[in-house]
């Protein structure tokens, strides 16, 4: 019986935080990107999504990942860091699926006007979501992170679970995504330009480094407090959301500003 209750509790906790960037995180990235779309790109994009904002579709992939016909996309969100997925049959290292899908879509969308409307529509939904996912430090499932447990307010939890629910909710949970994006959008023009340089592969390598950095911030005894961890971890979270927004903007502008 105890087991049942544990399972129940676990399910409850997991259900409330099953995705690392929750709906608010993804909305924030989309809002931020939208602030940096050119008027022409914005108008072109919205023509393909029935006049809606890209924010409407920021989490679309999350709620369409389990059932056909979109269950094929279920593996695109998180980079499971295993030998099998990191190399092809000849042993060549491969980028994670989020990155390879972004690259595929960008390449295909070179001339979006010749594509069927429905394909452009779905590709917009994919890009809006995956650019967020590939910037999330816990969307990389390192085997060495998996067994790690931390203690927060006297309770023990998984490292990954702490990232999911607690860090953002410790601060700013009550801010709407709209306001959160405004708060984060404070890079200078030069900083934005620098952020937008590079390729999705470079950006992903950066996420890996950030994930590592966040992990190393953990105090040795793994007892986590506001001062010794959350305060610094939130900076990483905010920086990731911000650069994801700027980069989503540059990708969408490169496709649709023509």
């Amino acid at each position, binding site marked *: 019986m105890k087991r049942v*209750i544990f399972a129940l509790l676990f399910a409850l906790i997991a259900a409330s935080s099953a995705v690392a960037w929750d709906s608010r995180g993804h909305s924030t990235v989309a809002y931020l990107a939208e602030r940096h779309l050119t008027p022409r790109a914005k108008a072109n994009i*919205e023509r393909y999504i029935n006049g*809606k904002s890209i924010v409407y579709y920021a989490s679309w992939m999350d709620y369409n990942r389990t059932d056909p016909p979109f269950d094929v996309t279920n593996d695109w969100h998180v980079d499971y860091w295993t030998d099998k997925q990191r190399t092809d049959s000849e042993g060549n290292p491969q980028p994670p699926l989020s990155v390879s899908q972004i690259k595929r879509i960008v390449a295909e969308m070179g001339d979006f006007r010749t594509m069927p409307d429905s394909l452009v529509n779905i590709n917009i939904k994919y890009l809006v979501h995956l650019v967020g996912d590939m910037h999330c430090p816990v969307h990389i499932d390192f085997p060495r992170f998996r067994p790690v447990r931390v203690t927060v307010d006297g309770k023990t939890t998984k490292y990954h679970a702490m990232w999911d629910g607690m860090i953002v909710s410790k601060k700013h949970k009550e801010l709407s995504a709209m306001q959160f994006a405004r708060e984060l959008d404070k890079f200078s023009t030069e900083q934005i330009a620098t952020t937008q340089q590079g390729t999705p592969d470079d950006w992903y390598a950066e996420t890996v480094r950030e994930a590592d950095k966040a992990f190393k911030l953990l105090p040795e005894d793994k007892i986590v407090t506001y001062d010794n961890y959350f305060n610094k971890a939130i900076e990483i979270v905010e920086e990731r959301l911000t650069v994801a927004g700027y980069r989503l903007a540059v990708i969408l502008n490169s496709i649709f500003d023509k």
Partner: protein
Amino acid sequence: MKKIVLFILGILLTAPSHECFAWGRNGHATITYIAERHLTPQAKANIEKCLDGGSMVYYSSWLDYHRDEHKVWKRLRHTFDIDIATGKPAGRPIKQLRSSLKKLHNYQELPDSTLKLSLYHFLHAFGDFHCPGHIQHVDYTGEKPKIVKYTDYDVYYAPRKKRIQYHKLWDTPVLSHNHTDWGYMDWGHALDSGVSQEYIDRVTAGTLEDWFTEAASSTVRIYSDIPRSPKGAKDEELPVVTLNLMNEYGDLAAEQMLKAGLRMAKLINEIFGE
């Protein structure tokens, strides 16, 4: 022991869902907010003057919360009837709405209390008739009108693994299912960001009756997708609202809110725009 587990589950599942009004407050707020975005400055100033400087959004759910306080308020219907023979609106609810609109056309001459009640009624009920769960199908061929279809039966809400009254599913869950943390400004922005003039012209063409007929027909599918379940049916016997269906219903609800907002704006501009 089992009882305790069920009890805990019960608390957790019921706690967030006790709000059982049409569209929920967020849906009504979204509709009036979208409407506000499409008002002429003159219409906005005039209607807000009637609301003592407050926003339409602030009063959009007034009728839900105050209906117990006066028998006249309580009589105002939130559910709308269509005649199954004609597909057109029928009965008391549409008469009430027409009557409030007619009064508002002379808003400058109304006593303040009548003006306010007519406005609160219009701002709310106009949203309600765009809510798929709020349209009931009525057969008028017999001696007495007979309700043929209404959403007052239980369904199985598969993504959340629980039973729920179909009517309630169309209130808040249909909006909060995929957008748990959105406020009305988020909704308004997301739905109304780049709506084309062609779309606005198309959905706002016609009369109140036309809009109602259109709203009713575009929501007919909710009864064919999910047929009535017998009273007392067990969970496993209930018709299932799947994840895919819930996603489609979310989009349908969003579209209905957008249409309601744009149409509401047209009426307010006509009445208060001078």
